[in-house]
């Protein structure tokens, strides 16, 4: 059974003129690391919301088709059913933060799931350490900087120990080193079994971690597959996706008749390919 299955799913927000998602069919399995990208307004957040039933149960509208998360239909089961399965990091962290301090914020999710108090304490301490939140421990989430809020939102979601982490631009407010650190943590948790669905515009940061990239445009999935194959497509530039710099160089060289063989996703990979090409 797939962890997430979209079966010919379409959705239009109440009062909207056009569909935000158009006939989406796909499955995402355990262990996958899927990066979702595409132009602003193409439906990425709506896609995320459909996984944990916020669409259509909280955000209402016209629905066709079905989504099954962990085998359960998101139209027929309560939103709470999906909380421990699909943990969502909101695009705007402030909209996710509901309690009075950082400790309570991290404990909030597991408390609602009925996790034992000892275990909650353990998770809170572990995440405070992992995400470098010690200094913020007693701060009110609305009295923090944007990046601090985002780190707390990520910690609060990881505290649920979800089967699949659904992270909607989780590093948009982070400084470059914090972004790298958080993405390393996510990649590490993925290796240990947590599936990841991550929305991102800056593919330089995440392409190397992904096992699969899905390109969306105007509510549809327009490409879905191996990151190297997808990013090598001209379609990326056509719809305005930010291809990694190393891949861009590869593509420019290709138009000048230089074929490096493999498609690089990072600067180091690019350098290695150039070296290999000279020693051939």
């Amino acid at each position, binding site marked *: 059974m797939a962890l997430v299955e979209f079966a010919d799913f379409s959705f239009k*927000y109440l*009062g*909207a003129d056009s569909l935000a998602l158009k006939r989406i069919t796909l499955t995402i399995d355990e262990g996958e690391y899927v990066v979702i990208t*595409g*132009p*602003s*307004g193409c439906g*990425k*957040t709506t896609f995320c919301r459909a996984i944990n039933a916020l669409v259509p149960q909280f955000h209402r509208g016209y629905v066709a088709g079905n989504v099954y998360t962990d085998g359960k239909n998101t139209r027929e089961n309560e939103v709470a059913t999906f909380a421990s399965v699909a943990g969502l990091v909101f*695009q*705007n962290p*402030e*909209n996710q933060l509901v309690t009075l301090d950082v400790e309570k914020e991290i404990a909030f999710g597991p408390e609602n799931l009925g996790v034992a108090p000892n275990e909650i304490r353990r998770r809170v301490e572990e995440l405070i350490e992992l995400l470098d939140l010690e200094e913020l421990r007693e701060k009110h989430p609305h*009295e*923090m*900087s*944007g*990046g*601090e809020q985002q*780190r707390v939102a990520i910690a609060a979601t990881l505290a649920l120990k979800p089967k699949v982490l659904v992270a*909607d*631009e989780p590093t*948009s*407010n*982070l*400084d*470059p*080193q*914090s*972004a*790298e650190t958080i993405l390393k943590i996510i990649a590490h948790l993925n290796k240990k079994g947590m599936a990841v669905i991550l929305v991102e*515009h800056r593919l*330089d940061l995440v392409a190397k971690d992904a096992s699969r990239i899905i390109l969306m445009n105007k509510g549809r999935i327009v490409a879905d597959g191996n990151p190297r194959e997808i990013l090598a497509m001209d379609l990326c530039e056509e*719809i*305005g*996706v*930010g*291809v*990694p*710099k*190393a891949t*861009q*160089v590869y593509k*420019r*060289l290709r138009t*000048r*008749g*230089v074929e490096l063989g493999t498609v690089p996703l*990072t*600067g*180091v990979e*690019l*350098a*290695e390919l*150039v*070296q290999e*090409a*000279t020693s051939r």
Partner: protein
Amino acid sequence: MIILEDVHYSYDGVYTALRGISIQIDDGERLAVIGANGAGKTTMIKHMNGLLRPQKGRVILDGHDTKFMSVAEIAREVGLVFQNPDHQLFLDSVKKEVEFGLRNLGFTESEAEQKRQKTLTDLGLEGFAERSPFTLSGGERKRVALASVLSTEPRFLALDEPTIGQDAHQKSLLAQMLAEMNKLGRTVVVVTHDIEFVIENFPRTVAMADGQIIADGSTSMVLSNDEVIERCALALPQMTLAARAMRNVFPEVGQRLTLLSELEETIMGILGGA
């Protein structure tokens, strides 16, 4: 010209978010402010339009101490776009949201409408005028927040993380708009974590850490300062990583390759195809 003179600010009286910020921004400059999360960037930029007032030190706008000016008076000169658009947008249509600021500045209804239309089009938001900002995607909301300030073409533009949520195409549209406004004499100050955006668009960079300015100068100089890289929590761009890895094998590769085209030509040279 905006001058911050030894500005101090604390939100709660215990922890001090700004500890003596001094900076002079001349008319027509393009300046980026960088720094780690919590460094005080948002706190500083909010001082530029009077939203926060220094607890010690002064903010001087065109020779006038802003202590004696109302927020409305300052806002006439300095337009601020918030990091989080939720803190900025409060009306029930995009059209009202963008025209609100214009009408406040005394533009007639038809002028306001014309400017609103142009700005929305420039930011890829044509067709959004009647929408409620609360029904927009994250990136769209940020662009409406930008539009409501950019449309008024203030003399000083202060933008807090303007590229958040923007795809590559939208980011270049924004860069283009800022360049045009700057050409017309507007001063542009951005706070951002997007170092490529800084390198490509801003000749001067101010680096902040722990509520202080630790470097201020040409962008290339500030970004090659090791203390800045460390304390501003910067990461090396992929271009630099590629250049470094290549230099280990091919000594002819330049020290500082920052542009895609430079790397491309270097590789063509190495492969003998140029």
